[in-house]
């Protein structure tokens, strides 16, 4: 197949040889492996974008509460702050962060989301892309290209490492989502494929080693806030890359290092709710309250 790639380097080479963007190369690849028309693929991704938009809106404007009662309503609080006050990190940053939290809160409240790449990290990509699209008046067609760019980064990480918190910790899960979002944001702003991969690499480097330690094992806390920080990380890393700053370690090596770090993590810190925040006195008390004494 002409447009197959196994890592970041091969993806960049394909882009440069064919004078294409990452999203174009990824779309060619998808059409080749599935036998589907490009229009059909774009149409399906467009539906994913609509579900993401709905989840953002719901979390920002409606009262959502998770099944356990642990999370919900924080996105709305942050929206009220950035709409009515001068914020430290600015309107756009706060809006993106609140949007990411909104999606995770909707997820925890058993609402509809698109895993991106997982349910636990599903807020970051919509948070970044929908906010960037609104700020820079990008059409849905353009925003969908961002989702496709993001999927290329996620595919490479899935193929060469992991995006599962249970396998590689939160660095792998929200780290992958943030790297995907950073690369997409760079490409949407006119950055080169190289810059997009630098942004993705910088994003993962920034949170390397982050553990997965959900309270009571639920996709709620600290997941909502880890999606918040993943969103900020993606936007900052995208700006760093767009300024022409490079990641000293290339993307593929960063992904490999991230994977190795994940494998070194004890199982207590990989989604088992046996370590980190889950094992704090408060974390354990919450767990007892939700599930009783049995666990």
């Amino acid at each position, binding site marked *: 197949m002409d447009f197959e790639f196994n890592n970041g380097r091969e993806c960049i080479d394909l882009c440069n040889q064919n004078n294409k963007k990452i999203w174009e190369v990824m779309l060619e690849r998808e059409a080749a492996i599935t036998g589907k028309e490009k229009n059909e693929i774009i149409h*399906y*991704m467009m539906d994913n974008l609509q579900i993401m938009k709905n989840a953002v809106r719901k979390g920002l404007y409606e009262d959502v509460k998770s099944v356990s009662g642990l999370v919900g309503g924080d996105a709305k609080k942050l929206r009220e702050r950035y709409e009515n006050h001068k914020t430290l990190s600015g309107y756009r940053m706060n809006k993106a962060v609140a949007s990411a939290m909104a999606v995770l809160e909707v*997820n925890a409240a058993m609402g*509809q989301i698109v895993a*991106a790449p997982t349910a636990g990290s599903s807020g970051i990509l919509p948070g970044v892309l929908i906010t960037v699209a609104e700020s820079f008046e990008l059409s849905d067609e353009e925003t969908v290209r961002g989702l496709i760019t993001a999927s290329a980064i*996620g595919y490479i990480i899935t193929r060469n490492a992991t995006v599962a918190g249970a396998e590689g910790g939160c660095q792998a899960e929200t780290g992958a989502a943030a790297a995907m979002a950073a690369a997409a944001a760079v490409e949407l702003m006119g950055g080169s494929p190289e810059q997009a991969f630098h942004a993705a690499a910088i994003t993962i480097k920034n949170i390397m080693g982050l553990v997965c330690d959900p309270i009571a094992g*639920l996709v709620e806390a600290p997941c909502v806030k880890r999606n918040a920080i993943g969103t900020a990380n993606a936007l900052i890393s995208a700006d760093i890359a767009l300024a022409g700053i490079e990641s000293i370690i290339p993307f593929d090596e960063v992904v490999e290092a991230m994977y190795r770090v994940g494998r070194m993590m004890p199982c207590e810190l990989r989604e088992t709710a046996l370590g980190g925040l889950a094992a704090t006195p408060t974390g354990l008390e919450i767990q007892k309250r939700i599930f009783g004494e049995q666990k």
Partner: protein
Amino acid sequence: MKNYSMFDVIGPRMIGPSSSHTAGAARLSKVARKIGGEEITEVTFYLHGSFAKTYKGHGTDRALVAGIQGMEPNDENLRNAMEIALEKGIKFEFVEADLGEVHPNTVKIIMKGISGKTTEVIGSSVGGGNIKVFRINGLDVEFTGEYPTLLIRHIDKPGAIAKVSLILSEYDINIAFMRVFRQSKGKDAFMIIETDNSINEEVIGKTKALGEDFISVYLIDAL
């Protein structure tokens, strides 16, 4: 290595909070309902491992009850599935159980249909919304639902496989994987055929019409 699609990365569309504890659970019980082959009136879910410990917080209970009514993992009604089941008069129960050396997210589903027939299905939610069914009515089987899957309960006799594969070849359907599981020689058996192409109603009808040795035929759509 699996050839990842962009929708393996951005997807599936699902009801939260967890692809393994919610989406996978809904899918497992939806497949179980297919195997039951009729409307379910009573069901008991035996929850093992992580399912047993965390099912309430992850909405695994609602997801299971949703699937047993035929809802998809991305159905907005999933969160109200238990209320909807009660309105329909469907009885359901959850029992924490030790199902042995199995995946931590495993459930045994024992259900009774409107005809009074009881069916037992055991399967695991293995991550990312993917599932593995490994026992049906006490018979060991194995399929994942990643491909369109034909599930044929038949009597273990020579020629049974040839008859089915002939129908598939007539319709130009390529078999990706095929396995046959039986209780003992000449008794109840399951043929599980995972295909590269989608399977239409005509194929199902022809397979059902093969004769009384073919007890039931179900199609499980791909994820």
